[in-house]
């Protein structure tokens, strides 16, 4: 089993950017801002925890991919999983922290006799992202198949070793 240094580097970078920094930055946001966001129905702590979790999973996937050869089925499976995971991240961003919204975000607030509802409809980009991820998976499969074919073509054909029986039946060259 090999260890890809690039994967380790990208894995650590992803962990720092998506997990360590948001968790650290969360403590630096003034409490009054957190309360203001909370009153508008936006839970910052929950959002940061979700981003940190996404970062953790992404870095694990990047690290795992570095352990496998591009021709292995495990590499293909991890490529597909990480591509699907990217789609979830896109849904997370488009849904403003809620994956299940799929790009349709509804924020409601009420104060006394006044209620206000804001609806963001960016589902089009969720659909386009799904198509892109589908195409990326097809691309990964085609690339995997090509890499496998290349490996088979490059490997020299092993000559079959003669067995003892075969040697016994081998016609003897006439001796003078």
């Amino acid at each position, binding site marked *: 089993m090999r260890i890809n240094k690039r994967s380790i580097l990208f894995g650590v970078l992803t962990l720092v950017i998506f997990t360590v920094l948001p968790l650290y930055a969360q403590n630096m946001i003034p409490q009054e801002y957190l309360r203001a966001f909370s009153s508008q129905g936006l839970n910052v702590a929950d959002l940061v925890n979700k981003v940190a979790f996404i970062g953790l999973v992404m870095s694990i996937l990047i690290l795992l991919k570095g352990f496998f050869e591009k021709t292995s089925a495990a590499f293909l499976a991890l490529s597909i999983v990480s591509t699907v995971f990217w789609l979830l991240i896109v849904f997370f961003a488009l849904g403003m922290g809620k994956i299940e919204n799929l790009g349709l975000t509804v924020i409601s607030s009420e104060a006394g006799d006044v209620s*206000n509802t804001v609806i963001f409809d*960016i589902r089009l*980009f969720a659909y*386009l992202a799904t198509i892109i991820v589908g*195409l990326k998976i097809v*691309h990964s499969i085609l690339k995997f198949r*090509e890499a496998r074919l290349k490996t088979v073509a490059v490997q020299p054909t092993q000559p079959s070793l003669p067995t003892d029986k075969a040697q016994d039946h081998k016609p003897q060259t006439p001796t003078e």
Partner: protein
Amino acid sequence: MKRIKALRLGIIGFEVLTIALCVLSVYTLFNALSTAISGGTLNLNLDVDESTGEWRFVLNGNPRNGGFLGITLFFEVAVLDLSGQDIARNSTSVYIPAGGANQFSLSLTIPPELVPGGSLEEAEGYFELRFAVRTLGDLVGFTNILKIRGQAP
């Protein structure tokens, strides 16, 4: 080999196009929100016709679109009773091309029998204002629904 490369290039092109469309439409939406509905572009009037006793709500506007894509603005005003049934409702929509402006007018008449004592402040029910901006062939949008409850003192 060529097929895989072509697919890869196609995916990259599709990604770039999607990101560009996303940035352009989000910019256009926020630009519309900051310019189209502010800076005195909207004029709201509420008058009573003394002869008939009807209340007339009029919304006039000349919104401008400073974004890169054309937008469709939609306005709807409604008066509802406490059970949520419509008393009066009217809506209009206007298309504004990129960098352009367009006028619109929306009026709503409330019959006098639905305003007890002739004063809207004393009327019980809801006033609803719906405002929407859509862009990219109406595929991307933002909607704001403001609902105010009126209560008899």
